[in-house]
């Protein structure tokens, strides 16, 4: 990043009236308050989704049916996914965007603060919609939550119970919230950058989010359309996906994955944007290959829109289509390899230290690399017939979304938390959290690759005896992984409450506008815009 000047002491200006208590959070239009609410919501959903999957793993500890009825098992897996994707990961990324984008581009706040508030407050009702059928079933209303898996495949979802309807409306709300958030982010980035900050001087995190926001704006309406068609098929006599009426169930898969594949990059791009900052800080070197990374982000964003059918290679697509989707999918590994190269080159011969954010960033690179390599195997049409719908896929996308997504979020939280709170978190607890997370994650998911290769199918509450040992190991790993996250929550809580004060720069090697503001930053981030030379 370029050198900057700070026109005046940015601290202060707390003179105006702020509502306090609950009203502060209900009515706030401040980007930091809204960012905090997004992060808090994300943390709550992270534990809720985690609790669901621990029930699933408990059931899978041994073959046979021990704790859960298959119907309930089916509800848990799909809701775990929806809650983790739409409830935990996307709001965490939006929380980062709210906190960081105005700080990093030298803006006083987001461009559309009221829209921002509304965008957040759609999330709790959506989460309620998704989980309410669990509770209603206890009172004898309906037959539980969405039980189709998170993908809503027709015709199963056309036949499902009220849980499907609740999930459809939840997806509508979540979609509207994300679209509003994305519009806000794009407008903020385009209209509110500090003078002198050209697009090619923007921090990589902001670039990652810009591509993400465009992907959301383009693909989420298609998902909204698909679930709307599902709703009218269920209740209003249309036949979009009903073969009897001339529709086609495979069409649903096309529509769903037209959104679903870019969604993977929607979850990952903000993380790919923040990791280089962390690598650069703790290697005490500038980011290597800034332009190459920006162009890779854009290339991956564009490619992600044209590869969707690799999620259903076995649905009976014609061979030319299979070949097209195989080669286009594999071509994504080229810009991704550029990113990996730049990340490693940023660390190369740097004066590296391994504070918690750096540990998470390096762990991210190693484990996310495994996700990328196993993804190449799945992209192979010939091989995919064996792997499809097996635990190999489950292991692959958890390597992608847990290490690529959630560990990336943890990287960012440890990196920026001292900036946000003005206090340093406990480095001891942070390192303990890292090692417990990485070891237990591999314990939980590495065996699933082998289970999948041996033929264990996804989404089934019971399995053959030959899979027993690896499933037991996986369950032990999952429980350690789940409980290790309590350390994360406790460390954040302690850091908010107090701890050693930090300087404006926080870390020795930081560069960028956000480190010129005091820690914590003032209520209005940049009353007077800085100038970037």
């Amino acid at each position, binding site marked *: 990043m370029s050198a900057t000047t700070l026109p005046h002491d940015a601290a202060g200006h707390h003179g105006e009236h702020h509502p306090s208590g609950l009203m502060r959070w209900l009515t706030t239009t401040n980007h930091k308050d809204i960012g905090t609410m997004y992060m808090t919501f994300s943390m709550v959903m992270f534990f809720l989704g985690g609790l669901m999957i621990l029930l699933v793993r408990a059931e899978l500890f041994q073959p046979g049916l021990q704790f859960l009825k298959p119907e309930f098992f089916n509800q848990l897996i799909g809701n775990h996914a929806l809650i983790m994707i739409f409830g935990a990961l996307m709001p965490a990324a939006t929380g980062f965007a709210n906190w960081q984008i105005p700080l990093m581009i030298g803006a006083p706040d987001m*461009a559309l603060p009221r829209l921002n508030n509304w965008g957040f407050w759609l999330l709790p009702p959506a989460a309620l919609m998704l989980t309410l059928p669990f509770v209603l079933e206890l009172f004898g209303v309906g037959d539980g939550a969405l039980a189709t898996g998170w993908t809503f495949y027709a015709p199963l979802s056309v036949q499902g119970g009220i849980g499907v309807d609740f999930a459809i409306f939840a997806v509508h709300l979540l979609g509207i919230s994300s679209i509003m958030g994305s519009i806000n982010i794009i407008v903020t980035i385009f209209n509110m950058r500090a003078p002198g900050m050209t697009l090619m001087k923007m921090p990589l995190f902001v670039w990652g989010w810009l591509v993400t926001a465009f992907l959301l704006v383009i693909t989420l309406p298609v998902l909204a359309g698909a679930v709307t*068609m599902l709703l009218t098929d269920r209740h209003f006599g249309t036949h979009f996906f009903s073969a009897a009426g001339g529709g086609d169930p495979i*069409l649903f898969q096309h529509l769903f994955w037209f959104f679903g594949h870019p969604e993977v990059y929607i979850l990952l791009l903000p993380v790919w944007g923040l990791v280089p900052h962390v690598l650069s800080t703790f290697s005490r070197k500038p980011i290597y290959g800034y332009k190459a990374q920006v162009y890779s982000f854009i290339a991956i964003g564009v490619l992600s829109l044209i590869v969707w059918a690799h999620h259903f290679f076995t649905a009976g697509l*014609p061979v030319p289509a299979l070949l097209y989707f195989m080669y286009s999918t594999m071509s994504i590994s080229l810009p991704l390899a550029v990113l990996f190269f730049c990340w490693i080159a940023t660390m190369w011969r740097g004066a590296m230290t391994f504070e918690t954010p750096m540990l998470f960033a390096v762990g991210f690179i190693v484990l996310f690399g495994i996700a990328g390599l196993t993804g190449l195997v799945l992209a192979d049409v010939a091989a995919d017939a064996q792997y499809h719908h097996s635990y190999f896929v489950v292991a692959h996308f958890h390597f992608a979304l847990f290490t690529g997504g959630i560990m990336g979020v943890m990287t960012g939280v440890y990196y920026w938390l001292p900036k946000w709170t003005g206090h340093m978190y406990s480095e001891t607890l942070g390192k303990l959290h890292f090692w417990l997370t990485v070891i237990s994650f591999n314990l939980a998911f590495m065996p699933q690759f082998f289970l999948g290769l041996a033929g264990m199918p996804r989404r089934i509450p019971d399995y053959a005896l030959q899979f027993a040992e690896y499933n037991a190991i996986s369950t032990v790993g999952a429980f350690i992984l789940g409980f290790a996250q309590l350390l994360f929550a406790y460390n954040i809580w302690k850091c908010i409450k107090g701890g050693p004060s930090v300087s404006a720069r926080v870390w020795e090697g930081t560069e960028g506008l956000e480190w010129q503001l005091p820690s914590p930053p003032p209520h209005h981030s940049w009353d007077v815009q800085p100038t970037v030379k």
Partner: protein
Amino acid sequence: MNSATVSGPARHRPLVLKLTALVAASFVFGFALVPFYDTLCRAVGFNGRTLKDALAAKDVGPVRVDLARQLTVQFSATLMPGLPWEIRPLEPTLDIHPGEIRTTRFLVRNTAHETITGQAVPSVSPSQAALSLRKLDCFCFRQQTLGPGESRELALTFIVNPDIDIKLREMTLAYAFFPAPTPSSPTGDQP
């Protein structure tokens, strides 16, 4: 630069409107994919879709029967949930020569005590055979209504075009029987 020019919601409006238009366009695009996908499937036989309309015998013209080649056509029939019928092909397989006109029958019986209307939806695999299978007449062109306990033989007359891929020796014509979506308004427009 002072804060008055930094904020000011009016200057965001053009960009917000453009992005909103992009969202609306994406939403419409999702719905536009429905007819596009349907057309694509029928044009190239994706997904085992057969041609939509029945061929009249005169349209087939004088087709050369390729006696040198023999193909096995398998028939299957599946009941979808909610249709209390029994159904089976009377001839599970037929050995045919490309170009000859053949007729086969399916037996259906309504096991319920009420009149029920059903609709058969065909699918051909492998999908590259879908375009070569031409139906002259098929029970799947219209809905079938069966009275309580009624049995009926449903006829299918078809021809396999001699231009079919030389490598193909077997093909399957599978029918899924669904409860008719709108019994009150039978249409001849089914796939």
